C-alpha cells in the first residue's frame, strides 16, 4: 500500500469544513503537493535564483541546470528525450500550441518546413465526443480558421468511444486526430493504440490529451507512437502554472511557434525570422522556472513510487468507489460499472436522483469531503450521457480505502437530507 506516504503531503493534515478531517477526493481537478515538490520550488528561489540560459555567472548556471534537469526528469517520466518536452503554462496552452502552430503553418508561417502541417478546405480534423473542452475548442477554432471540417468519434451510453466507426471517421481526408487518453468524467482509459494505428494508416497527425493519465499510469509516449501529447503539472503532484507538451522530434522542429519573442530565434531580419529547434522555438520570454523545477520534482517523486504501483493502488480504489456508488439507491454511476473489469481510472462521476450535483457537493463538504461538481469541462459528453452535470470523486496516490468508505457513507445520506426517500421512485 502507498498510504504511508500521506505524511509527505502537508495539506492532507488540515481540517475540512466544520473541523471534520479532510477527505480530499478532487485530485482529478488538482492534486496535492508533497513536501519534496514544495521544497524544490522554494530551494530554487532561496539558493539558485538566476536567469535561465541568459548569463555566465554561477547562479544563472545553477538555475539553467535545475531547469533543464527538470525537463529531463519529466521527459524520462513519460518515455521521452529532453528535447521532446516543451514547457507550457498548462496542458491547455500545450494543446493550443499545437492547434495554433498548425493554423500558422496553414497561413505560410514556418516556411517550407511548416508546409507539412498546412491544412485547408477539404481536409478533416477528428476529435471525440468525450473530450475535455481544452482538447475540443482549439480544434473547432482551427477548423474555422482553415476551412477544414471538424468530425468526431461518438460514444455509447457509458461513454465508451465508438471505435467501430474509426475506419469511417478517420479517412484519407483526415489530417489531425485529437483525442484524450482517458476521460475525466467516466474514467474510461481509451484504446488509443487503435486510434493511433488508424491515424498512421492515413497519414494523420495524432494529438493526445494525457492530463488524466500522466499522473496515474505508467506512460511511454515514444513507444505509444503518438505525435503530440499534453499533460499538466498540477494534476501530477506538481505546481500550477506549468504543463508539458511532448512531440516527436522531427515534428517539433518543423511546427511553427504561435507565441513569438526572445530566446526562440536563429536569425531575425527586418522582414523575416527563422527559429531555433525545439524546445527553444516554443519557449518565448521568461519561463516559469520554479514551477518547471517543481514539476520535475513531482515526476521524480512519482517515478520513485513506481507508476505500476500507483496504477494498481488507484485501480483498486476506483473499483471500491464505483461499486460503492452504484450500490446506493437513487444514485446513477456514469461510465462502466465497478464490476465490469474494464480499465478505468480511480474516479467515479455520478448523479443523485432529485438532487443537483451542487447540492450533493455541499452536503459532502459539510462532512469534510471535497468533490468536484459541474460539467467538468466536458459539456458534450454530459449531454450525450443525458445529464447536464455530475458530481465526481477522484483519487490519487495518497487516497485511502477509509476515505472512500467515509465518502460512500456520506453519499448514502444525501437523499435523506433533502427529504427524498432512500428508494428510487
Amino acid at each position, binding site marked *: 500500500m502507498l498510504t504511508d506516504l500521506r505524511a509527505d503531503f502537508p495539506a492532507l493534515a488540515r481540517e475540512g469544513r466544520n473541523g471534520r478531517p479532510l477527505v480530499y477526493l478532487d485530485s482529478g481537478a488538482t492534486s496535492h503537493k508533497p513536501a519534496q515538490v514544495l521544497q524544490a520550488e522554494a530551494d530554487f528561489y532561496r539558493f539558485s535564483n538566476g536567469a535561465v540560459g541568459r548569463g555566465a555567472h554561477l547562479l544563472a548556471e545553477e538555475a539553467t541546470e535545475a531547469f533543464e534537469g527538470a525537463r529531463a526528469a519529466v521527459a524520462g517520466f513519460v518515455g521521452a528525450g529532453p528535447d521532446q518536452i516543451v514547457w507550457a503554462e498548462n496542458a491547455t496552452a500545450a494543446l493550443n500550441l499545437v492547434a495554433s502552430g498548425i493554423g500558422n503553418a496553414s497561413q505560410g508561417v514556418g516556411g517550407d518546413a511548416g508546409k507539412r502541417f498546412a491544412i485547408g478546405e477539404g481536409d478533416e480534423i477528428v476529435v471525440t465526443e468525450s473530450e475535455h473542452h481544452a482538447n475540443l475548442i482549439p480544434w473547432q477554432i482551427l477548423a474555422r480558421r482553415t476551412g477544414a471540417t471538424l468530425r468526431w468519434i461518438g460514444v455509447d451510453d457509458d461513454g465508451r468511444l465508438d471505435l467501430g466507426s474509426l475506419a469511417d471517421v478517420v479517412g484519407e481526408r483526415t489530417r489531425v486526430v485529437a483525442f484524450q487518453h482517458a476521460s475525466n468524467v467516466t474514467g474510461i482509459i481509451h484504446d488509443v493504440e487503435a486510434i493511433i494505428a488508424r491515424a498512421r494508416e492515413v497519414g494523420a497527425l495524432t494529438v493526445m490529451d494525457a492530463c488524466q493519465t500522466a499522473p496515474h499510469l505508467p506512460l511511454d509516449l515514444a513507444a505509444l507512437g503518438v505525435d503530440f501529447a499534453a499533460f499538466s503539472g498540477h494534476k501530477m503532484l506538481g505546481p500550477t502554472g506549468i504543463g508539458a507538451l511532448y512531440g516527436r522530434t522531427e515534428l517539433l522542429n518543423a511546427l511553427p511557434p504561435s507565441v513569438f519573442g526572445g530566446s526562440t530565434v536563429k536569425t531575425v531580419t527586418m522582414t523575416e525570422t527563422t527559429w531555433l529547434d525545439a524546445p527553444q522555438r516554443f519557449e518565448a520570454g521568461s519561463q516559469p522556472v520554479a514551477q518547471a523545477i517543481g514539476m520535475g520534482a513531482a515526476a521524480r517523486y512519482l517515478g520513485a513510487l513506481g507508476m505500476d504501483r500507483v496504477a494498481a493502488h488507484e485501480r483498486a480504489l476506483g473499483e471500491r468507489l464505483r461499486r460503492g456508488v452504484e450500490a446506493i439507491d437513487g444514485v446513477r454511476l456514469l461510465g462502466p460499472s465497478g464490476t465490469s473489469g474494464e480499465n478505468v481510472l480511480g474516479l467515479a462521476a455520478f448523479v443523485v436522483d432529485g438532487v443537483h450535483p*451542487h447540492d450533493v457537493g455541499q*452536503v459532502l463538504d*459539510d462532512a469534510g469531503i471535497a468533490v468536484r461538481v459541474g460539467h467538468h469541462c466536458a459539456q458534450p459528453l454530459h449531454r450525450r450521457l443525458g445529464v447536464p452535470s455530475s458530481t465526481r470523486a477522484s483519487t490519487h496516490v495518497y487516497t485511502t480505502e477509509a476515505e472512500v468508505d467515509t465518502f460512500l457513507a456520506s453519499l448514502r445520506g444525501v437523499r435523506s*437530507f433533502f427529504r427524498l426517500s432512500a428508494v428510487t421512485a
Partner: protein
Amino acid sequence: MSALEQMYQQVIMDHAKQAHGRGLEPAEGAHVGESFQVNTTCGDEVRLRVGVDGDRIASLTWEGQGCSISQASVSVLHDLVVGSTLTDTHAAEAAFLALMQARGEEPDAATEDLLGDATAFVGIGRYPARIKCALLGWMALKDALIQADVPPERRDS
C-alpha cells in the same frame, strides 16, 4: 441549526420543489425584456422574461435548470417582484446583494420586511462559492430590465 441547515431552510427546499413563475410565457406590459444567464462554475442556467407596465413589473416568467439554491432563488424573486414598482424592485435587489455579502449575519427587521421569503437565503453568505447560484435569477432580472429599455426616469426614481 447547523450552517448547512441554515443554508437549506425549508422555505428554500419548498421553492426548489414547487417553483413559482416557471415556464416562459408571453410578457405583459409595454416594455419586454429577456435574459439568459449561466453560472460558469456549474452550468446552471436561467432564461427570464420580464414585462413592465408603467412603473410596475407586470409579469416575470422563467425556465432553467440548476441547483436548489439557484432555482429556489428565481422562484422567490418571482413572488417578490411581480406587481412591485421598479423602485421597490431595485431596493430589494440591493438588499439581497447586501444579504449575500453579510457572511450569514441575520438582517435587520427593515431588510426582512423588504425581502420576505428571500431572507431565507441568509445562510448562503457563509458559502462564497454558492452566492453566484443565489444571484443567478437576480442577474437575469437586472439584465432583462436593461433589455426592456424602460425609460431611465422610471428605472431609478
